[in-house]
């Protein structure tokens, strides 16, 4: 892609010199034109720069970007097209790495990787190009739930099995072979059950929600709320921190001003990042995170695990990004004609301080 753009740029730049043999008026016009060409060139330059950025990100998979022809003609390797959402978070980067590892050549795969930068249309186009390339199987991490019916039908017509990873789609179950992912509601429930166990006295809890309307935010809230029902834990406030550290920090600052550090006993954050932000806010308010105010989060990324080891977070439920192996097994099973379950839920672990200390050295994300 980068190469293509550079070619275009060179062609645009080498259009000879049209200013020769022209009247001054025309000359002026051409000068204007050149100005425009120049600006276009400048734009193209930036685009090329970004393209270069993207391709460095996925440098490993670039090497295998040319599939071994129709029907996996490249020896015994299984050609798999993987349409990733983008690189929007550390979780996603770890997910991509896990897929790259699981679908490596040693494991008998040839991975064609596409990152759609969170553009649903680009992702559908990528899947369509996988179909045209005649890959053996397609793995999709859908950006959105809707709009998949047509392209999934095309894949089915071309007899290419589709495995969904992480998020799911609204299209009919018959159109894809299987889904592998996580149960956000169970994550919330695990966090809630721990809280219900720990807090037997009246407890004031505030919640840092994820992005409003997103599936993880909704499900993690529902699971947690169900688990603490009937316990002395009272949800005194809840607001969206958009899954970011900054959001978590500023919302927590507001909560601390509103209720006072003494008025809050427990924070439930829908992800580690917001929990890390809350730690900053609690420390700035002169309280001790993990002691004066306990913190429960979900995700278990390395920074979060470090905070858990340091005693600033009290409990973390994992949201496992390492779905690669499960997806690779599913692909092999489907291609061998085996019956596979429509949904595979990868088990999430939960960590308290001791477990985090043991797990932290191996944490890659």
């Amino acid at each position, binding site marked *: 892609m980068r190469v293509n753009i550079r070619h275009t740029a060179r062609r645009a730049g080498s259009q000879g010199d049209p200013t020769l043999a022209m009247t001054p008026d025309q000359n002026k016009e051409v000068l204007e034109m050149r100005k425009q060409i120049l600006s276009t060139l400048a734009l193209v330059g930036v685009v090329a720069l970004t393209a270069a950025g993207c391709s460095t990100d996925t440098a490993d998979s670039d090497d295998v970007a040319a599939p071994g022809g129709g029907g996996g003609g490249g020896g015994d390797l299984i050609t798999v097209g993987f349409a990733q959402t983008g690189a929007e978070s550390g979780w996603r980067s770890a997910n991509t790495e896990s897929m790259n590892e699981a679908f490596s050549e040693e494991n008998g795969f040839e991975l064609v990787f596409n990152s759609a930068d969170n553009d649903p249309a680009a992702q559908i186009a990528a899947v369509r190009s996988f179909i045209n390339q005649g890959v053996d199987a397609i793995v999709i991490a859908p950006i959105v739930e809707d709009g998949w019916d047509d392209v999934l039908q095309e894949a089915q017509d071309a007899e290419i099995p589709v495995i969904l990873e992480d998020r799911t789609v609204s299209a009919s179950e018959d159109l894809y072979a299987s889904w592998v992912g996580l149960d956000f509601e169970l994550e919330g429930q695990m966090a809630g059950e721990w809280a219900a166990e720990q807090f037997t006295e009246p407890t004031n809890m505030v919640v840092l929600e994820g992005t409003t309307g997103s599936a993880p935010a909704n499900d993690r809230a529902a699971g947690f709320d169900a688990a603490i029902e009937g316990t002395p834990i009272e949800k005194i406030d*809840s*607001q969206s921190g958009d899954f970011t*550290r900054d959001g978590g920090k500023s*919302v927590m*600052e507001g909560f601390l001003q509103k209720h*006072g550090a003494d008025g809050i006993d427990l924070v439930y954050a829908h992800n580690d990042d917001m929990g890390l932000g809350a730690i900053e806010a609690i420390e700035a308010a002169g309280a001790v995170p993990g002691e004066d105010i306990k913190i429960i989060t979900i995700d278990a990324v390395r*920074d979060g695990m470090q905070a858990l080891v340091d005693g600033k977070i009290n409990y973390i439920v994992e949201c496992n990004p390492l779905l690669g192996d499960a997806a690779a097994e599913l692909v092999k099973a489907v291609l061998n004609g085996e019956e596979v379950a429509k949904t595979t839920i990868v088990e999430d672990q939960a960590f308290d301080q001791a477990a985090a200390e043991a797990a932290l050295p191996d944490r890659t994300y």
Partner: protein
Amino acid sequence: MTQIWKHRLFWPLAALITLIVVNSVARPRFLTITVRDGQLYGALIDILRNSAPLMLVALGMTIVIATRGIDLSVGAIMAVSGAVALTVIDGSNDPGNLGTVLVAVVVAVLVALVLGAWNGFLVAVLGIQPIIATLVLMLAGRGVALLITGGFITTVNSAPFSYIASGYLTVLPFAFFISVAAIAALALVERRTALGVLTEAVGINPEASRLAGVRSRGIVWGAYILSGVLAGVAGVIYASNIKAADANAAGLFIELYAILAVVLGGTSLAGGKFSIAGTVVGVLIIQTLGSTILFLGVPSAQSPVFFAVVVVVVVVVQSPRVRRALGSMTRRRPSTTAPDQERTKVAA
């Protein structure tokens, strides 16, 4: 009295004060300011401290808008600047060293300056529409920031670095002093020299001012450089606040809030006349509104609607036509003269 009523900062200030009153009534704690270790602490102080990044970005945006431009890339520049600063600190042997932090901040701001100069080059030299020229960096910049951090959130533990956003200089937050310094410097340069008038002239009619001998190219270019530098500093403050470079979230949508702050402050998007004081009030309105949502306990699903309603009310109340209508209603003067008076006032 009518003088105050007609002052162009009247409505923005009225909106700000109303928000503060609403918050205080809902939760009297809102006004409480406590002293801890000789440092002031309270919701109002939080607003001053947390508004620093938006304040810097909105000040730059004010000048860019005054030249009839717009800078959509500020959020992306913040992300890049934060990523650069954190990468420098993370890569050094001694993250807690003041020298390391200074180098990191200077490098980050220099990178932001280069990005601002690039925007200015596209707009002032190549004559590309500002919205398109800065859109390029808005879309590409975050990718560059992600590239610098490798797609992960870089976290550092550096006391001097976190001082920038969380530290106190005597009794008030250091970040607040950065805001004040930027406001003062800008007000001084724009209002105590001819630069402000020249900027407005370029915004009102670039061609006429060029013919009159104003070097409009330099002024427009300078505006984008200023905007880039201020966004760079804002990015450093943002990163310092969370001790991390979050390339995905840093400065996300801040360009829109900055434009909103500029408009709330009474500066026209059509370019020309601008008000630094207005922008300052606009930023404080937006920041206070964020606190209001928390203090009133608006559920997060409804908070964007609440935000939108307040903004619409403030903007509508500021509209000259609505003010004229209100004015003639409240004063009950012969309706033939009142609008004329208003119009001369507005024109003046």
